[in-house]
């Protein structure tokens, strides 16, 4: 008896879910007046035109990225002839003729169109050009890097899936028993927020250097795979686990789970069905996790000296070896696109025709409990450290006190040049947070401006999702040289699209509101409605969203600083501090662990802030009659 119920039920999951959503989504209006006549037309228009436009936006974004990569040598605007000459033969005098010969050799004097044509033409024949530095063909080194990176990513994905399963198991067990309560997911959120470069450094220090369990650099055997795979897989697993763990409680809240349990369907069967219901909707996000791995690969491969694609790209960007950079970045982007494409295919396969009209959308997760004191405490601790560091001098060099341990004069010890770690931490926060604030403000303005253009949201979010911040940082650094400005530009470039998507959604929602129609009825023009009603409704929530992203932006800036793509020494930037101090980690562990701890605090702050769901609307009072109303009614 059990098996047939399960089988029939499984086929009807979608139907059950759809009914539930339909009921929950619409305002409870017993007579449901006016809705049905308008709904069909609107839904149809939503399906056809914007999806086409989003597709066009995606294609345009891809074309733009490829064009940027192809035109890198020309866009950078710098003359690499001298660099190339030095790299090729140190003895040769940099005479005008020699430089001109190098330029001719590289095809730099041909202009952008010819340059791009050459590159694209070569690309079609599988020729990625010749490295400016080594003079070797680019393709073999890109391919060998790709092989290494793919192995590493596969191992990381395995780690991620293991961790995600471990994180979801309690929810699944409780859900199947019917004893599920809200909340939870904090561990997953914390893991997801730890940036790869931070985790890689900590793993290297603790497991590699202190305990000496595993090799910390190179690529000689399976043992070399463990630490990098952990560093990349743990945050990805945290993210995956969090996504699934967020979706599951809502699924278990759907009525069919009660019905199945009441009908005596086994727990295993309910769990399998719940996963089948929750997972397909999350496939696109799983694709995003895979995309994120390409960005994480740059940092992790650099820390563990793994000869993969990410390290190749970073090295090429730093040495201005543009052909190699083009090849490596192109391979990384193709990897990201392939991951996204696979996700889309899997999703289409799992959903089938139900994909249209988003009939199988997951129900919204139940709102979590708001505990404002957690981010409050974290912010207070951070503020304390920053405040006590700010009154000290971050540049005072004392060579007699190099790598000193903690003392009264230097509470967190000193770094390799005898500078006070606490002072550098405090001043680094001030500059990092200041830059992050500026980046957030720019993103907010861009997002508001672009959010008002119709149907931009989806396409823009796609671009941002396909380019991890580190890759954007590598590209921008190749164009402008590594600098704080370049890093903030890179982070701004990829941090505004989510805000713009949010703004676009709010604009659409507000414009569809009855009060906007009422405004048109009183004869208000589009400008009046936009500036006095839509903009004020959108600006507040999007600004709050931008503030919530502040710690995330700061972390992205720190990641770029860590890779040497952002602030330059001797600036006290957190990522840079971590990078500088990890060289001396055996002698002065505190100098490395202090910025690591500060970054971890920042990550925790990012997570807990994001967990605070801003209250978007005032709770509408039900129309309880006041005494005045009652007396009037009685009249």
């Amino acid at each position, binding site marked *: 008896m059990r098996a047939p119920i399960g089988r029939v039920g499984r086929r009807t999951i979608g139907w059950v879910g759809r009914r539930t959503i339909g009921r929950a989504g619409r305002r409870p209006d017993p007579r449901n007046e006016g809705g049905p006549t308008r709904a069909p037309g609107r839904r149809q228009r939503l399906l056809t035109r914007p999806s086409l436009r989003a597709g066009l936006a995606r294609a345009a974004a891809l074309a733009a990225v490829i064009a940027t990569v192809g035109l890198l040598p020309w866009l950078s605007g710098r003359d690499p002839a001298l660099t190339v000459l030095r790299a090729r033969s140190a003895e040769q005098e940099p005479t005008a003729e020699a430089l001109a010969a190098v330029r001719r050799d590289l095809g730099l004097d041909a202009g952008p169109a010819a340059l791009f044509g050459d590159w694209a033409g070569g690309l079609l024949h599988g020729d990625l050009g010749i490295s400016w530095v080594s003079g070797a063909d680019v393709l073999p080194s890109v391919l060998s890097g790709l092989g290494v990176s793919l192995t590493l990513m596969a191992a990381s994905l395995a780690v991620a899936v293991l961790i995600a399963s471990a994180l979801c198991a309690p929810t699944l067990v409780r859900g199947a028993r019917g004893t599920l309560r809200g909340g939870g997911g904090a561990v997953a959120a914390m893991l997801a927020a730890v940036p790869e470069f931070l985790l890689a450094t900590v793993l290297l220090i603790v497991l590699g250097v202190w305990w000496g369990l595993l090799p910390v650099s190179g690529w000689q055997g399976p043992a070399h795979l463990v630490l990098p795979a952990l560093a990349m897989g743990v945050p990805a697993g945290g993210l995956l686990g969090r996504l699934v763990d967020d979706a599951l409680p809502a699924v278990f809240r759907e009525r069919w789970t009660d019905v199945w349990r009441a009908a005596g369907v086994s727990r295993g069967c309910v769990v399998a069905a719940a996963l089948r219901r929750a997972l397909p909707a999350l496939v696109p996000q799983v694709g995003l996790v895979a995309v994120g791995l390409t960005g994480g690969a740059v940092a992790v491969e650099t820390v563990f000296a793994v000869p993969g694609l990410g390290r190749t790209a970073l090295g090429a960007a730093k040495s201005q070896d543009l052909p190699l950079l083009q090849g490596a970045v192109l391979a990384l982007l193709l990897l990201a696109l392939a991951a996204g494409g696979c996700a889309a295919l899997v999703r289409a396969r799992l959903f089938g025709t139900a994909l249209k009209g988003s009939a199988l959308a997951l129900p919204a997760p139940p709102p979590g409990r708001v505990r404002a004191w957690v981010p409050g405490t974290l912010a207070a601790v951070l503020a304390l450290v920053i405040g006590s560091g700010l009154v000290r001098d971050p540049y005072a060099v004392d060579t007699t006190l190099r790598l000193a341990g903690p003392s009264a004069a230097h509470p967190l010890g000193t770094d390799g040049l005898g500078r006070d770690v606490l002072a550098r931490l405090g001043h680094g926060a001030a500059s990092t947070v200041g830059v992050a604030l500026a980046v957030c403000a720019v993103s907010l303005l861009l997002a508001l401006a672009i959010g008002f253009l119709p149907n931009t949201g989806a396409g823009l979010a796609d671009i941002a999702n396909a380019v991890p911040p580190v890759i954007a940082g590598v590209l921008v650094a190749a164009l402008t040289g590594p600098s704080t400005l370049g890093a903030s530009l890179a982070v701004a470039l990829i941090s505004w699209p989510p805000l713009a998507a949010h703004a676009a959604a709010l604009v659409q929602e507000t414009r569809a509101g009855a*009060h906007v*129609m009422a405004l048109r009825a*009183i*004869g208000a023009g589009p400008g009046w409605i936009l500036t006095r009603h839509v903009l004020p409704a959108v600006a507040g929530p999007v600004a709050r969203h931008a503030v919530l992203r502040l710690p995330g932006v700061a972390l992205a800036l720190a990641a770029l600083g860590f890779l040497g793509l952002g602030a330059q020494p001797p600036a006290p930037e957190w990522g840079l501090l971590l990078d500088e101090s990890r060289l001396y980690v055996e002698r002065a562990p505190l100098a490395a662990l202090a910025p690591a701890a500060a970054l971890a605090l920042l990550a925790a702050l990012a997570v807990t802030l994001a967990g605070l769901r801003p209250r978007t609307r005032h709770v*509408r009072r039900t*129309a309880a*009659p*006041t005494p005045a109303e*009652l007396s009037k*009614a009685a009249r």
Partner: protein
Amino acid sequence: MNPLLDVTDLVVRYDDHTAVDHVSFHVDAGETLALIGESGCGKSSTALAVLGLLRPEHGSSVRFAGQELTALRGSRLRALRTRFQPVFQDPYASLDPRTRIGDAITEPLRVHRRPVAGRAAELMELVGLDPAYADRRPHELSGGQCQRAGIARALALEPRLLVLDEPVSALDPSVRSGIVNLLTDLQDRFGLGYLFICHDMALVRHTAHRVAVMSAGRIVETAPVRELFAAPREPYTRDLLAAHHRRPAR
């Protein structure tokens, strides 16, 4: 004399679906025409088209005091909008949640650059709303108070026709009669024409002068209210009234 509102052959289509199919009716000054019918029969689409908020198909005619509405665009349409105003079903949704009640009531005046001074209090008193509420926001008012604010806002431009799209169906039964009485008082005082969209038969019987019955996008019957309730001609009307009688009044 021209009727206040004269609608001829109104057609509204959403892609492949015809919501309003060659509908014709008129509303005179001081008269209430009730438009009744089941959910999805095209009542609200008709209202939106009459308000010029929805572009009807070619060949439709909506004449307001002899002036063709469907031919107008932009600022000229906005100028004519001062003559007819809507009152919507959901009093909360039809007011901007961020705008104070007093500002919301005088907003039509500011849009059309007319003097505002003192008008908020005047209008609020007209609809029986304490002028002290002018500084409140919609969510701080009850549904009935909010709907009074909506009516005050509709009256700000001194229109001659109100399009009432189920103005009381979202309200508590205890508040409804107060709003209905207010609307009848205002009609008597200013000679307003009402296009009253409704599906509460008791209310229609109480307030309307004439009734147009809509079904599947068409008007199947138009008759004075007494006649319709005493002797409905069309089977659909009979079903509708019978359904009402079976259901206890809410």
